[in-house]
Each structure stands twice: as structure tokens, then as C-alpha cells.
């Protein structure tokens, strides 16, 4: 195991005694949100791996078929993964764009406005996408 990630490099006692670096970071930080942002970014990334493989395969299969896009999307094996994809994708996009804004925008008011806009836009796009799939299906 490499040096940077060895368990408990800093001796700091927390409730429960032996703590890993991740355990210590949970629920801490100035916003008391700990590693939530970091963790959701990884979870959405892992979810996107099979969903992405499905997406590319399903699109190629669709391209080779004669059915219309609406008929294709109305099938449960397309509609359901598509909704899951929209959820994981826009969570991942929201968190990723937030980090980029926080890294490069140093004017507090502008940073706040941009982050809020990104969050709002991502949730709006997610809802429009899911609603469209449901409209096509039902």
C-alpha cells in the first residue's frame, strides 16, 4: 500500500477508536457534509459504467432496426435503463461542474450564482428527460 493512503497516518482519536482516513472525514469539514460530495461522485460514476455500455449497445442495435425512435423508447428494457441513466448522468454532471466552478471562479457571489444555476439546470434537465421517457412509454 502506498504511503499517501496508509491507514491512520495522523494519530487523532475519534469515537470508536481505530479510524481510517475515510472514517475520519465522514461528517466533518466546515459544512459538516464530510465526504458526501466525493462519495456521490464515485457512486454515480460506478453506476454510469454499465449504463454507458448499455446506452452505446442499445443505440447501435436501434440504428440497425426499422422501428421508430418512439417505439424503441417505449420498450421497458430501453425506458427503464434510460431513466436510470438520466438520474446518474445528471447527478454526476451536477457534482463535476460544481467542482470545476469552485476551482476556477474566485469571486464569491459569481461562484454561488453559477453553482446554484448548475444545480438547478441539472435537476431540470433530469426531470424533463424522465418526463419525456414516461410520456413516450404511456
Amino acid at each position, binding site marked *: 500500500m502506498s504511503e499517501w*493512503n496508509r491507514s491512520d497516518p495522523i494519530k487523532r482519536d475519534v469515537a470508536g477508536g481505530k479510524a481510517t482516513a475515510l472514517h475520519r472525514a465522514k461528517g466533518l469539514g466546515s459544512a459538516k457534509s464530510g465526504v458526501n460530495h466525493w462519495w456521490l461522485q*464515485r457512486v454515480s460514476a460506478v453506476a454510469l459504467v454499465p449504463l454507458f455500455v448499455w446506452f452505446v449497445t442499445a443505440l*447501435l442495435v436501434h440504428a440497425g432496426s426499422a422501428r421508430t425512435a418512439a417505439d424503441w423508447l417505449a420498450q421497458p428494457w430501453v425506458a427503464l435503463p*434510460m431513466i436510470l441513466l438520466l438520474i446518474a*448522468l445528471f447527478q454526476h454532471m451536477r457534482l463535476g*461542474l460544481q467542482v470545476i466552478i469552485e476551482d476556477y471562479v474566485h469571486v464569491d457571489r459569481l461562484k454561488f450564482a453559477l453553482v446554484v444555476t448548475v444545480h438547478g439546470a441539472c435537476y431540470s434537465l433530469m426531470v424533463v*428527460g424522465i418526463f419525456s421517457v414516461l*410520456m413516450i412509454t404511456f
Partner: protein
Amino acid sequence: MATKLPPRSPDVQVYRPQLTSVLSIIHRATGVWLSLGAIVLVIWLASVAAGDGAYTLVRASLHSWIGGAFLLSWTFALYYHFCNGIRHLAWDLNYGFELVSIYRSGWLVVAASVCLTAVTWVIALLITG
């Protein structure tokens, strides 16, 4: 007396680009570019839901040469972000974090994303004719 301050490290203007830093910034750039693609995906879904008029317009835009160029760039961005994302997840699990492995996996990501993009488009063009 005016003294010129030495450049502070890391100063991107004087820093020699390395594979590691270049791949890192491309990961961000492809992420931003894919955000635009995600918006187009929602527009496409909404147009299918809206019906013939809207769908015909979106379909024609995507089938134009400029639409095709966008789709090609998103295909590459998607494969790159996918492959390099897996590389990042491996690092999070503490695999491949030695310098030799980082360079090897870096070049692997570049080769894989180029090859997968080419294979996908060849298949797509063969299918659609």
C-alpha cells in the same frame, strides 16, 4: 527598488506539459463537453415525446454534417471520460498508483478511446449504410 518576483510553481505558462497533467485537464474538458451532449440527449428525448414536427427538426440537425461532427466528438469524449474515469476509480481503490503504472494506463486510455470511437463509428456507418 523594483525587483522581479520569481515565477511561483506550479506556473502553467512555464511548466512543461506532461502526459499526466494533459490527460487530467482533458478529463475535465471532456466532462464539460459531455454536459453539452447531455443537454442534446434531453432535447432529443423531449422531441420524440413532442411528436413528428419537433422530432423531424432534431433528427435533421443531428443528421447534418455539423450534427455528425458533434456526435463524433461526443463519442470520443464519452469513451475518453469512460476509460479515464475507470482509471480514476482504480486509483481510488489504490491500484496502479505508481508512476510507471500511471503512464502505462494513461497511454492505454488514449489508445482505447481512439480505437473504441473508430470501431463504434465503423459499426454505426455499416449498419445505417
